[in-house]
C-alpha cells in the first residue's frame, strides 16, 4: 500500500514535469517563427487582387537584393517569409500593380502607379509583419 502511493506520487510528479515542459516548449517553438506577408485589395472592383507579383528586397546593402517573391492568391494574400526567423534589417516590398491593372477586366491602359514600393524596418525576427495594400490605378494606401 505504501509502495503504491509512492508510485502514484512519482507518476504525478512525472505528469507535472511533462506538462511544465510542454508549457515551456510551446512558446519556445513559437519564438523561432517569423513571417512577412502581403495582402492586396483592389479598391476599383472592391475585391481582393489575385495574381499580383510581390517581391521582397533586402535594402540594407549597396544595391537591393531580392530575398523572396510571391503571387497573391484568390484572397489577395501572399506569403513572402513563413515560419522562420526574419533577419533584422531594412526591407522593401514591391507590388507589381501596373501589370495587374493592365491585365485587368476591363484593362486599364495607363495606370499611374506601376511598381508600388513599401520600405520598412524589421526589428524583431520572430514577429509577424503583415503589409496590406489598398489600391486603384491612381491611388493607394499601404501600412504595416
Amino acid at each position, binding site marked *: 500500500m505504501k509502495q503504491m502511493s509512492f508510485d502514484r506520487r512519482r507518476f504525478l510528479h512525472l505528469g507535472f514535469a511533462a506538462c511544465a515542459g510542454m508549457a515551456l516548449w510551446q512558446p519556445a517553438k513559437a519564438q523561432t517563427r517569423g513571417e512577412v506577408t502581403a495582402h492586396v485589395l483592389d479598391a476599383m472592383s472592391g475585391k481582393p487582387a489575385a495574381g499580383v507579383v510581390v517581391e521582397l528586397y533586402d535594402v540594407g546593402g549597396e544595391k537591393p537584393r531580392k530575398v523572396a517573391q510571391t503571387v497573391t492568391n484568390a484572397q489577395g494574400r501572399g506569403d513572402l517569409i513563413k515560419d522562420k526567423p526574419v533577419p533584422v534589417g531594412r526591407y522593401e516590398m514591391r507590388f507589381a500593380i501596373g501589370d495587374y491593372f493592365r491585365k485587368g477586366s476591363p484593362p486599364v491602359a495607363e495606370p499611374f*502607379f*506601376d511598381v*508600388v514600393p513599401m*520600405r*520598412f524596418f524589421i526589428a524583431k525576427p520572430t514577429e509577424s509583419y503583415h503589409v496590406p495594400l489598398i489600391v486603384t490605378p491612381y491611388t493607394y494606401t499601404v501600412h*504595416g
Partner: protein
Amino acid sequence: MKYPVTLAVSVLAALLAFSSEAQTRKGDLSTIVMNVVSGGIADGMTIELYEISGENTRKITQVATGADGRADVIASGPLPLGKYELRFLVGDYLRKQGTAAGNPAFLDFVPIRFAITDPTGHYHIPLIFWPWGYTTYRGS
C-alpha cells in the same frame, strides 16, 4: 487699309493666345504632405527626387515643404520623360517630432514611384502619412 489692320490684330491676338497657352503648359511636379497624427500639414520635410533606371538611381533634386506643407519639386518644365521616385524623409521628420514608431523607426523614407509621360504635364503627388503607413494619389 482696313483689312490689313484687322489681319494684323488677329495675328497678334492669336500669337498672344498661343504664348499664354504655352506659358500655362510648361509642366510641373509638386506635392503636399499631411500628417494624420498631428492633423495638420508637415512643415520642413525633406523630399528628394531620383531618376530610376533598373536598380540604378540618380538624384535629381531636393526640396523641403513650406509652412503650408507644399513643395514644388520641379517648378517649371519641360519635364524630362522617364521613371522617377519621390522620397519623402518621413523617418527623419518623425524623429525630429519625437513621434517615430519603433527603434529604428518602421518607416524611414517613403518611396513613391511614377513615370513622367508628358513633358508639359501637371504632376501633383500628395502624401498623407502616419507612423505605420501612408496614402498617396495622383492629384490635380
